[in-house]
């Protein structure tokens, strides 16, 4: 691999042990994937430190002890605990204590402990052609597909990239991989973010690690719908990027999106395909009692917070229902300034940051330190408005999980009874 003078300085330990370790890992990664050299990155979205896994926060603390500092703007991904309101979620103090060590480690490293899966709604908005790294596959898809930045789906090495400002040139950092492999004609009419999350969820297994190119949308999707589409694709597929000609930089047409590529696989998505995703998370009939309702996956944008406030204004969450709205700390602060948080909490909803149901201590598939004693699972039937959250809630919390639209989820929360998609609010 061709390395610069500064890369070699880091590799030789001239910039300290943390950067030496980071560069050694990145070089090994680059050699595995045949990278010719390294690129300079402009942004990193990294490992948050997960209190629900043993020795996970320690990965960051070890680097702090070596004096590590990030060299590019760096945000932390969604994690297990609401930093400010962990008691509100029922998290045990032993878990919160480990989490706080992760927050402190990020501060020492020089990161923004944004702790969100939607750092872009919190102001981190990489540009067209900016090389970056992301530990969250949904962020990878959004930044590649909506902003035109260049990111792979990374793991812990997102931290190594942040410490060195470098990343091996392979995958979606190369033009040759940023071309369409599947041409998707959307015949279904899609009305909201949940519908778009179902579109992505349906296509993930059909597309695999390919790059789907979309045509046929009745109108340009909103930013929130593009976000929901990416999260759905990344949930069921190995997708890193999609292309909507006219939206994804720099592609203005399907021809440009397919330029130089072999003939694409052609796919059509009808209304029945979307119905089937909803149907796979419809294990109880409308009218069934519900004890938990969640909206805000991926973490809500300010626009979504406004929509939630409009839906919940003047209404009250049913006393048998716990309702969570999840977002980033940054969006929550802005929403508070605009008076939205009081509207939501007056209605009885809880506004939770830094985590979400599938990411918090509700998950049963984790492996925390034995010193952390988690409360008994108490959720029996959960309603969500995102296909991503639905899949992971079902598999990780192992409760009955139902998928409906945002408006129907709010109607479910206020009535205490399941309102199906298109059903009349209670």
């Amino acid at each position, binding site marked *: 691999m061709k390395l610069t003078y500064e890369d070699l300085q880091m590799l030789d330990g001239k910039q300290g042990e943390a950067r030496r370790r980071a560069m050694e*890992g990145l070089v*090994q*990664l680059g050699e*595995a*994937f045949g990278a010719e050299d390294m690129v300079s990155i402009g942004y990193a979205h990294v490992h948050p430190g*997960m209190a629900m*896994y*043993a*020795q*996970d926060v320690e*990965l960051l603390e070890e680097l702090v002890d070596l004096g590590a500092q990030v060299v590019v703007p760096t945000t932390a991904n969604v994690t297990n605990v609401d930093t400010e309101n962990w008691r509100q979620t029922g998290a045990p103090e032993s878990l919160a204590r480990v989490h706080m060590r992760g927050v402190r480690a990020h501060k020492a490293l020089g990161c923004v402990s944004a702790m969100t899966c939607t750092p872009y709604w919190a102001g981190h908005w990489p540009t067209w052609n900016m090389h970056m790294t992301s*530990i*969250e*596959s949904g962020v*990878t898809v959004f930044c590649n597909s909506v902003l035109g930045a260049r990111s*792979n*789906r*990374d*793991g*812990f*090495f997102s931290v190594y990239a942040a410490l060195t400002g470098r990343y091996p040139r392979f*995958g979606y950092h190369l033009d040759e991989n940023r071309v369409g492999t599947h041409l998707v004609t959307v015949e279904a009419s899609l009305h909201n973010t949940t519908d778009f999350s179902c579109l992505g969820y349906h296509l993930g297994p059909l597309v695999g*690690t390919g790059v789907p190119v979309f045509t046929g949308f009745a109108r340009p999707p909103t930013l929130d719908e593009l976000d929901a589409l990416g999260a759905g694709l*990344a949930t069921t597929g*190995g997708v890193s990027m999609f292309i909507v000609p006219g939206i994804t930089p720099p592609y203005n047409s399907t021809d440009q999106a397919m330029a130089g590529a072999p003939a694409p696989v052609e796919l059509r998505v009808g209304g029945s395909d979307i119905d089937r995703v909803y149907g796979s998370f419809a294990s109880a009939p409308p009218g069934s009692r519900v004890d938990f309702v969640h909206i805000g996956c991926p973490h809500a944008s300010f626009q979504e917070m406004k929509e939630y406030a409009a839906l919940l204004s003047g209404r009250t969450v049913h006393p048998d229902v716990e309702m969570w709205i999840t977002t980033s700390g940054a969006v929550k602060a802005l929403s508070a300034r605009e008076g939205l948080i009081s509207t939501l909490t007056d209605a009885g909803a809880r506004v939770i940051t830094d985590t979400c149901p599938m990411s918090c201590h509700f998950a049963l598939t*984790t*492996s925390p330190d034995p010193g952390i004693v988690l409360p008994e699972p108490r959720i029996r039937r959960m309603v969500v408005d995102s296909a991503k959250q639905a899949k992971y809630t079902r*598999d990780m919390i192992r409760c009955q999980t139902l998928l409906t639209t945002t408006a129907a989820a709010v109607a479910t929360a206020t009535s205490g009874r399941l309102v199906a998609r298109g059903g009349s609010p209670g």
Partner: protein
Amino acid sequence: MSDRYRIAARGVVRGKASGPALVSSEGISFLGDLDIGTGRVVNRTHQIEGHRVAGTVLVLPHSVGSAGAWRFLYQMQVHGTHPVAIVQNSLPDSSLVQGAILGGIPIVCEPEVDVTTSIRSGDMVDVDGDAGMVTVRPAVSADGP
């Protein structure tokens, strides 16, 4: 015991390790198919469901890509339930490679022969991730899954 033989491959993650082979002709998703605490294959429809990967050289056609794969492989190393090395026909995805480097678990891939048919569960396997070499000492009566 039959004679040992060698398979040339490409070293992906450095390091050396030895152990009995656990061969699956079906790929594995490190996020979802495996239980961190026990190292057992828990996917009920998987070909080697119920087998423990701990201490084995895991021999696969490929691994199923997932951005969270690194965490599960690393967590298995933290809990001592990890395979000591991975040999697979195709190049694993980036996340799994990152987890293996972090956990010091050598990986070799792109071997000169299909390892899922040439190696049998129970064979003793030495993996050299630096040289990209796999040395197999066949078990007397291989009894694979």
